[in-house]
């Protein structure tokens, strides 16, 4: 069972979790980008096959209205307007030949597109 699967169903719906592997990868990317601390923004924007797509980027500081979560040594900033679509989500990282990189396990997603980047609620 993957770490994300272990988390699925046990993540409180008022938060977003990042698995140790995803956190480690995020730190790796932050280091490569020359950032001293690792902070990522997780958001949702319009677009993609199913209408909503994930946004994942390294940032320096939260916006005033962002929800801030600290887990596994990284800070996660989530815009309030996006949180409703992300509550209960687990961010995992899948590597290897068949790996897809960062993966969102979102309990709110009723449908996802083939590439997994887009979803509908």
């Amino acid at each position: 069972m993957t770490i994300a699967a272990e988390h699925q169903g046990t993540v409180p719906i008022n938060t977003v979790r990042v698995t140790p592997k995803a956190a480690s990868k995020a730190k790796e990317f932050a280091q490569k980008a020359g950032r001293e601390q690792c902070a990522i923004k997780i958001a949702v924007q319009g677009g993609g096959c199913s209408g909503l797509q994930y946004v994942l980027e390294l940032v320096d500081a939260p916006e005033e209205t962002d929800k801030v979560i600290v887990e596994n040594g990284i800070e996660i900033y989530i815009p309030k307007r996006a949180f409703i679509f992300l509550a209960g989500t687990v961010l995992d990282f899948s590597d290897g030949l068949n790996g897809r990189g960062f993966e969102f396990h979102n309990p709110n997603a009723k449908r996802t597109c083939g590439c997994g980047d887009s979803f509908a609620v």
Partner: protein
Amino acid sequence: MGSAAPRGDAAILEQAHSDYATRGAACFKPPFGSTLRHIGPDALDLLHRLTTNSLLDLADGSARRTILTNEKGRIIDVLWVIKSSDHELLLVSDAPHATEVMEGIERFTIIEDAELIDELDRWKRWYVFGPNASQVLGEVLPGLDVSSADIGSIRGIDVAEDGMALALRNDSAGPMSWLVIAETTAAEEIDARFSRNRLSCVPEEIFNQVRIANQEPIAGNELTQEVNPLEAGLMHLIDFEKGCYVGQEVIARLDTYDKVQRSLVAFTQEIEANNQRLVTVGERIQSNETARNVGWITSTGRDCMSGETIGLAYLRKPYCEVDGALTTSQGSTITVFPRTHQAR
């Protein structure tokens, strides 16, 4: 503009036909159409992510058509996107109202800094169409450069001190059509200019006859959520290289595996010869062999020149291949043929 003397519908139509034939152009004030202003730094990027065509390279002061589809790849609306600046777009369509487009965009506006404003009351619109439409429009709005204007070209002009007008070359009623949209404050002056230049404002029936004769689909009839852009013949408004947009996966699959089930076709009906009733919009078309429904009629009219009854219909693909007679659910006979319309 129309005569003040009360006359019967037939006489008005006859006069409108005559004016159109004499001048080679006519004007029509549509009772339908939506105009939205989409503002904010993320407006263009959002629209690019939601619709079928590529918009990110759209230059200021230019226009491009794109299709808003739903998750099933069905048509919500076909929009002209007119870019004023990086932060301001005008979305113009023939849809009867803006509700569905607004819902289709606003439900996916999450973190984007973008706002949609319904500007129906701010703008008035006219279609100027016919083989001489460009020339006539140049006479009505002197100073408007209508030369070498391809489909999608847009021209702006100040109408006296009353307000601004935009003229968008399009194909709503055939290869030579212009959509003029003007601020309400300038509408009276534009009407006066059409009148001074003896450009007839024709009834919707004439506009539809010309549109159908040119095999052009329109929102509400052919462009609805019952069909996808490939069925409607709008392949030229889809950028297959741009990446994801709402409904992209479905549309790409239909195209890749050649799974498009229906096509928009044209048809004629010889009423007089067979003493038949005129077919109506929505009437089902049946297979001659099995009487099974294989399509439906979306538009009907009378060809201005030949007087023949013409129309547009969706038909299952195997029945589009041959020019042939089919029967409708009400027992009328129509002759269908593939559209000769070339994507513009």
